[in-house]
């Protein structure tokens, strides 16, 4: 017994001595440890950017780690464990509401005016909630437009959806449009002037008004056309150039489509469709990717400096050069190579008709898909009005 006690006492003494000795000397250089999240495709590029950042900001002992979490997963991964999340992470603007609600983001205050001035207005708006800026705009290319086969269509043909269908049918081909998808089907409603808004966190839509019903009839006519084809990206890319003459999709497919079509590769803004006898331009969603600073970071100023650096003009051009990502920075967007990019200029043509996704709630997608699917399947058991009423009330979560 006694022996054991002595042993315990010595052990305690020893540990306390060690603890005393471990007192640290006053640090001369500040140690800053940060983590950045980006998609796996971005890792090499981010690594280079981080090195450039370190070189440009000497006098601090930087430890900057990279972690693989792509933008679509940012919200989920963040909320699973905010403490383990990166200090600086990339996210798409449709997550900004949820992240701000969860208190996940630092408000951007340092150099705010310069950041606002440097980026296009729609990108800044997409990063803004209640007048406060919560992200550093990084890309402005998450939208959709029309890809087409030049051997089938002239530039004049692709201005009207009706004409496109007609030409495609004559050529024995199809026009691809994923109508059973809330993201794409919205373009008919947006074009007609229907609106999305959020009231107390609830989705408020006016799709079931008179205009909305006309839009519904127009979609019904479109999906009933023999040259109409729906499906996912895989179907689109498998058929483009052979059975498909044109299709609505986004920049992420630009590389593949241009390889498939070769010299016949072309893209432009979405066409006009016939709404109650009047030609109406199709609208769309404009999506942006933003850099955010984790509200739990230990080094907010340094994290902000890094986020700002990673999204500055030079790095946005670098993003375009390495990964063909379209810039949100005004100067970068005027870069000659960017202007010459077929997909990005099609997106730019569509931009005036696009709205931000910030006021779209998670509850919208399911009912919107159900509505599109019913029309695709030519299931007309419910009237358009009844279907839209159901869509509106379900999107509100009721």
């Amino acid at each position, binding site marked *: 017994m006694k022996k054991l006690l002595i042993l315990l006492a010595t052990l305690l003494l020893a540990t306390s001595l060690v603890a005393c000795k471990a007192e640290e000397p006053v640090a001369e250089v500040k140690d800053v440890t940060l983590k950045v999240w980006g998609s796996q495709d971005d890792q090499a590029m981010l690594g280079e950017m981080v090195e450039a950042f370190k070189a440009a900001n000497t006098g601090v002992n930087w430890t900057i780690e990279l972690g693989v979490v792509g933008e679509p997963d940012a919200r989920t991964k963040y909320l699973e464990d905010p403490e383990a999340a990166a200090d600086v992470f990339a996210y798409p603007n449709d997550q900004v509401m949820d992240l701000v609600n969860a*208190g996940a983001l630092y408000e951007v*205050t340092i150099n705010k005016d310069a950041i606002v001035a440097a980026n296009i207005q729609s990108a800044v708006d997409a990063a803004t909630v209640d007048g406060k800026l919560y992200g550093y705009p990084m890309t402005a290319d998450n939208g959709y437009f029309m890809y087409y086969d030049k051997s089938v269509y002239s530039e004049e043909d692709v201005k009207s959806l009706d004409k496109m269908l007609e030409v495609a049918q004559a050529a024995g081909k199809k026009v691809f449009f994923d109508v059973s998808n809330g993201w794409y089907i919205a373009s008919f409603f947006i074009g007609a002037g229907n609106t999305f808004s959020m009231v107390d966190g609830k989705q408020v839509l006016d799709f079931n008004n008179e205009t909305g019903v006309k839009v519904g009839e127009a979609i019904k006519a479109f999906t009933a056309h023999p040259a109409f084809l729906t499906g996912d990206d895989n179907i689109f890319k498998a058929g483009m150039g052979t059975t498909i003459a044109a299709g609505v999709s986004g920049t992420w497919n630009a590389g593949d489509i241009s390889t498939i079509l070769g010299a016949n590769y072309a893209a432009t803004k979405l066409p006009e469709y016939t709404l109650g006898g009047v030609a109406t331009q199709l609208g769309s969603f404009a999506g942006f990717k933003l850099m955010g600073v984790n509200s739990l970071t230990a080094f907010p100023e340094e994290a902000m400096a890094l986020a700002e650096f990673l999204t500055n003009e030079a790095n946005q051009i670098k993003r375009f050069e390495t990964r063909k990502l379209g810039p949100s920075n005004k100067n970068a967007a005027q870069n000659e190579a960017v202007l010459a990019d077929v997909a990005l200029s099609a997106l730019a043509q569509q931009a005036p008709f696009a709205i931000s996704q910030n006021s779209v709630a*998670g509850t919208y997608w399911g*009912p919107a898909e159900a509505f599109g699917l019913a029309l695709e399947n030519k299931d007309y058991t*419910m009237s358009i009005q009844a279907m839209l009423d159901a869509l509106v009330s379900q999107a509100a979560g009721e």
Partner: protein
Amino acid sequence: MKGGTQMTNGLKAFGKRIGLFFTHFSQGDIITKASYFVMGLGQFLRGQWVKGAAYLGVQLIFIYYMLVSGISSILGLRTLGTKLQERVWSEERGIFVVQAGDNSMLMLLFGVAAIFVVLAFVMVYWMSVSGSYQNQMTLEAGKKPLNFRQEIDVYLNEKYHITVLTLPVFLTFLFTIVPLVFMILLAFTNFDRFHQPPGNLFTWVGFENFTAALWKDPLKSKTFIDLLIWTLIWAVFATVLNYIFGMVLAIMINKKGIKLKKFWRTIFVITIAVPQFVSLMLMSQLLADQGTLNVILQEMNLIDKFLPFLSDPTMAKITVIVVNLWVGVPYSMLITSGILMNIPTDLYESAKIDGANAWVQFWKITLPYMLFVTGPYLITQFIGNINNFNVIYLLTRGGPLSLEYFQAGKTDLLVTWLYKLTVNEQNYSLASTIGIFIFMLSAFFSLIVFNKTASTQKEDDFQ
């Protein structure tokens, strides 16, 4: 009834323990009394060195844990956090400095965990105290308490079940029971997207979710009931058909005279070896409206319009059941062939002498025997199918979606619907509430069947 008697028996045993706790103390000698305060004394001072030291160690660790975090964790359960994340403008730094608040989710989880730690400690404490008293009795009777070696022998024989089950029970508590209690308690909170940590707190709301969830809203309750019916239909078909086809397949392969048994079995096992998310993704591409199967059938001029395998509600329901056969039959083939080989051959021999043909043999011998052995397996398969997230989600995502349902599609099971609710609305408390309904339903059903099946009633018969 049965559960009731089990419960009263449990309570009685518990009451008896409490009584013993005090009688042992009053009848104990000084060492026994002292071991009520310093655990392990009654073992250590009576020659059981290892055991005594272990008890003491447990006590020290427990006290340390309670002081460092246990007590505050348990107290935190009352409010689930009071300190809200704050943002304070700092002129000097030019930023709104964020001051972290409490995280309600972690407080709930660690509160639950702390309670389980206390319960486990009480159990160990009881073991040490009663063991100490028993040692005293043994010594008074003129014998020696068991030494370490002898004790090990006891744990390898008479008390073998304790040796064997301690680790599984511990792991089950850690990875199943604590998370489960946590999830059940979520249903009594307002954890949704407006109360999302770390920026917000959530707190107890009592039974509000249970009333608000389904009863007040006709569309939600219609969705719930329709999906419940489909879930049950799906579970019955998926379970029964998989089982029967798997068994028939196993019987065919095992039949005397069939050659290349190993070859046939391997073919079906390969489909298990390819991960489900891959094979189901392929299946959904194969069966899509513009999918490969439709294209090939059209090219062969067998059909002129695509078959809506996954987009027509009724077809989709049939398709998921059939595809699930593809997924599940190899598993049941494996299990049943293992057991089929174990059927005593003399049963068949005597049946043959009586002139029974293969069909009669199947009904009179094979099936009853298989049901006896695999009864509980069937129940768990049934429950597993009620919660079969993978097959439905990877194949159809619940689609075709329908406006007749609230945020759900025609092949959605309750569990995939719950998942969508959490993803689209981050409404965790509602999801937990509906989860509890499913849980109670399946627990009630399966406990009845489980305790009525032949395999638990007469488990000693075949032994």
